[in-house]
């Protein structure tokens, strides 16, 4: 298995960061795993962490009162899970569950936020990268609003 | 084969053909317009009439001579005879536990089209290409077309909306006819007749005639030369294909959409427009139904409707579809042009939209750009 710093350096979300910045990020990271069905976070929980998924799949569910909860999205290997650590009020917006055995790298968001405050260059670099994650989610949501499979055109 | 006919010889044409039990369809005056209908005598031709046309306007006026073909074209075209406005394709019966589709027996009289203008000969050739020139052929059209006999008449009196000279389809028919006449009004009123097929030559041989002298041929040539000069070139079709396809979002389409009523007149009057719809009409008993093919128009919203949505919802997009089809995409689809320059779409447009002006407006800004 690759070392933690190699995985982080190769991840697209951290591409282009300096060696020094990467070293700091690696210092905030650790390997974690979740069993199938295990809750990773609940909506409203403090979001002091984000994950880079290395294996398995994570589901984001929204609880709709009096209805079955709706699965909003799934996050698979290679993708980043969580942006609430960076943006106030630092709360998870969805219920997050491992649907199968998940191996991931967890990043200490509180530690990174502190560093971002004192090092605006790193702060800007990370904000830019997580904005892309957010924009990707927003685009996917908008496309889904279009109902691109056309089920409702009649 | 070539000969000179006196005006009285036109009656012989009608006689000979009717004796063969053919229908003779020719221009005739009806409801203050020159329309095509079956005639029993050459006296039913619009003798001494001319048409005065302008965008959105058509009127008949008396001529000061006895010309038989002293007018351009009316609201109808020969499309009515070949691609009929409404035809039963099939009758489908529900019987014996299955569906039994049956075609009507085709027992159609030979029909002579007497007085086909060169632009209309060109239009017939275009519809031939579209309707029977591909891998699938329209059976009813083919039967009618095979039964047709084309007596063309070259043009000496183009109307103001005529632009066949611009489109290269007139005023002189080069081919596509069985027999062609040129009406000569200078000096002795006479016709130069030239056959285009063996059948045309056979008919000509049966007519009272004089041999054609060089002077007659020269006089006939002068008739179409004068018509060509009178028309001039009013639609510049150089690169018009690329011009229109490069300007699909041209603001002129917003402008024309303000005027266009999407009334479908242009497509109905057009001699090349071939779009049809297929509709089902049922007997009340539910035991049988007719499948009917009828003229359709790209100017209607239903034309492009597809499970709940239409591809062309705006009038702007429908006008653009029509214009680019006529002058550009028709060539891509069928390797022929789609417009023959007969001017009917201009005359019969209730608001006088002029295809020549629309193309010129697009070209003007294109030239300004380059």
């Amino acid at each position: 298995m690759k070392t933690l710093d190699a995985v982080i350096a190769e991840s697209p979300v951290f591409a282009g960061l300096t060696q020094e910045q990467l070293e700091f990020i690696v210092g905030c990271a650790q390997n974690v795993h979740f069993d199938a069905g295990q809750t990773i976070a609940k909506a409203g929980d403090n979001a002091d962490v984000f994950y880079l998924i290395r294996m398995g799949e994570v589901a984001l569910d929204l609880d709709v009162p009096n209805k079955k909860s709706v699965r909003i999205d799934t996050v698979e290997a290679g993708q980043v899970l969580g942006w609430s650590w960076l943006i106030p009020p630092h709360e998870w917006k969805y219920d997050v569950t491992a649907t199968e055995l998940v191996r991931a790298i967890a990043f200490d968001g509180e530690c990174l936020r502190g560093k971002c405050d004192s090092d605006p260059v790193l702060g800007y670099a990370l904000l830019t990268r997580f904005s892309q994650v957010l924009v990707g989610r927003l685009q996917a949501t908008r496309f889904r609003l279009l109902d691109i499979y056309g089920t409702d055109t009649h | 084969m070539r000969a000179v006919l006196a005006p009285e010889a036109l009656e012989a044409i009608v006689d000979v053909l009717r004796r063969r039990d053919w229908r003779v369809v020719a221009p005739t005056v009806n409801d203050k317009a020159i329309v095509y209908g079956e005639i029993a005598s050459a006296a039913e031709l619009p003798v001494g009439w001319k048409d005065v046309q302008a965008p959105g306007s058509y009127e008949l006026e008396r001529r000061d001579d006895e010309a038989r073909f002293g007018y351009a074209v009316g609201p109808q075209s020969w499309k009515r005879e070949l691609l009929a406005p409404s035809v039963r394709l099939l009758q489908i019966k529900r019987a014996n536990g299955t569906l039994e589709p049956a075609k009507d027996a085709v027992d159609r009289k030979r029909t002579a089209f007497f007085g086909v203008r060169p632009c209309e000969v060109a239009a017939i050739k275009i519809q031939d290409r579209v309707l029977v020139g591909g891998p699938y052929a329209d059976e009813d059209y083919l039967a009618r077309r095979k039964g047709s006999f084309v007596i063309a008449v070259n043009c000496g009196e183009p109307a103001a909306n005529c632009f066949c000279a611009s489109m290269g389809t007139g005023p002189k028919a080069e081919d596509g006819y069985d027999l062609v006449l040129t009406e000569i009004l200078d000096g002795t009123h006479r016709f130069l007749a030239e056959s285009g097929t063996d059948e045309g030559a056979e008919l000509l041989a049966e007519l009272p005639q004089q041999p054609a002298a060089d002077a007659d041929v020269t006089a006939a040539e002068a008739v179409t030369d004068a018509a060509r000069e009178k028309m001039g070139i009013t639609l510049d079709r150089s690169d018009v294909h690329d011009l229109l396809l490069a300007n699909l979002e041209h603001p002129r389409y917003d402008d024309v959409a303000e005027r266009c009523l999407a009334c479908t007149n242009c497509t109905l009057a057009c001699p090349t427009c071939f779009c049809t719809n297929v509709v089902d009409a049922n007997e009340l008993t539910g035991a049988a139904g007719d499948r009917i093919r009828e003229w359709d128009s790209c100017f209607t919203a239903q034309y492009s409707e597809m499970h709940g949505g239409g591809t062309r919802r705006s009038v702007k997009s429908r006008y653009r579809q029509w214009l680019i089809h006529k002058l550009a995409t028709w060539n891509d689809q069928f390797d022929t042009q789609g417009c023959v320059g007969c001017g009917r779409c201009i005359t019969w447009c209730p608001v006088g939209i002029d295809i020549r002006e629309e193309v010129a407006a697009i070209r003007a800004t294109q030239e300004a750009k380059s």
Partner: protein
Amino acid sequence: MAQTLTETAGTLEAMMPVPYAVTAKRQDTYDTWTLELEPVDGAPIVPGPGQFNMLYAFGVGEVPISNAGNFETDERLVHTIRAVGAVTKALCAAEIGTIVGVRGPFGNTWPIKEAKGKDVVIVAGGIGLPPLRPAIYHVLKNREDYGRFVLLYGARTPSDLVFLDEVKSWQSNYDVDLDITVDAGDTDWKGKVGLVTKLIPPAQFDADDARAFIVGPEIMMKFVAQELMNRDLPAAAINVSMERTMRCGVGLCGHCQIGPTLVCRDGACYTWDEVENLIAVKEL
């Protein structure tokens, strides 16, 4: 008759429907049914992958419907139909034994044989899967002639995935890289949630030597083609199926024009480079 009329006129029987009986029927989603049809008399027609038929509901009318049969091993016609208009509603309401009219097969075929030796990427949106089924079966029957076979399938909800059991059986029986996603799941849904485009970046295929086949609504095909091109798959290697109003199915009625092309005659299968610029023009 004047001299210019071509003497070699094309087929004349194209407008004559042939009676077929509905021999099996299955409801796929709340508004979609699959019919199996067999001829009342005589031999069945055998469409190529990508071709469509005009289906006639007695007394109501005709609609173009893609062929969804497995013509590698089975001559029954299979049509998956969404009940959205008068004719499709009548067809979906047909019971076993009902006689319908069939004209066809019309249109061109998927260049699936030309993809031999290459990786094949199939992307289906909703009921875009059935029109791809004949091509899929061609690849499965000749599996060793092709490289990797990637099948990506997206739908709005899990209940909008049609032929799902069959799709899963392909995965287990034929070495198919199957990936499925839905726009919105519920907690019973065990698979991915998200747009079908998200399945493309991780898909395993060689963009230098692959052919893609996409069927879904135009906007879905557009997003999918863009994502495939992000993977460096050339537009000419991406095949799509276009849909327009059709009345005749044989190039005579004019309805299915998209600029220079007639969908029933020149399509319905096109490469993305042939149609990308046409469908980019609003209301063309």
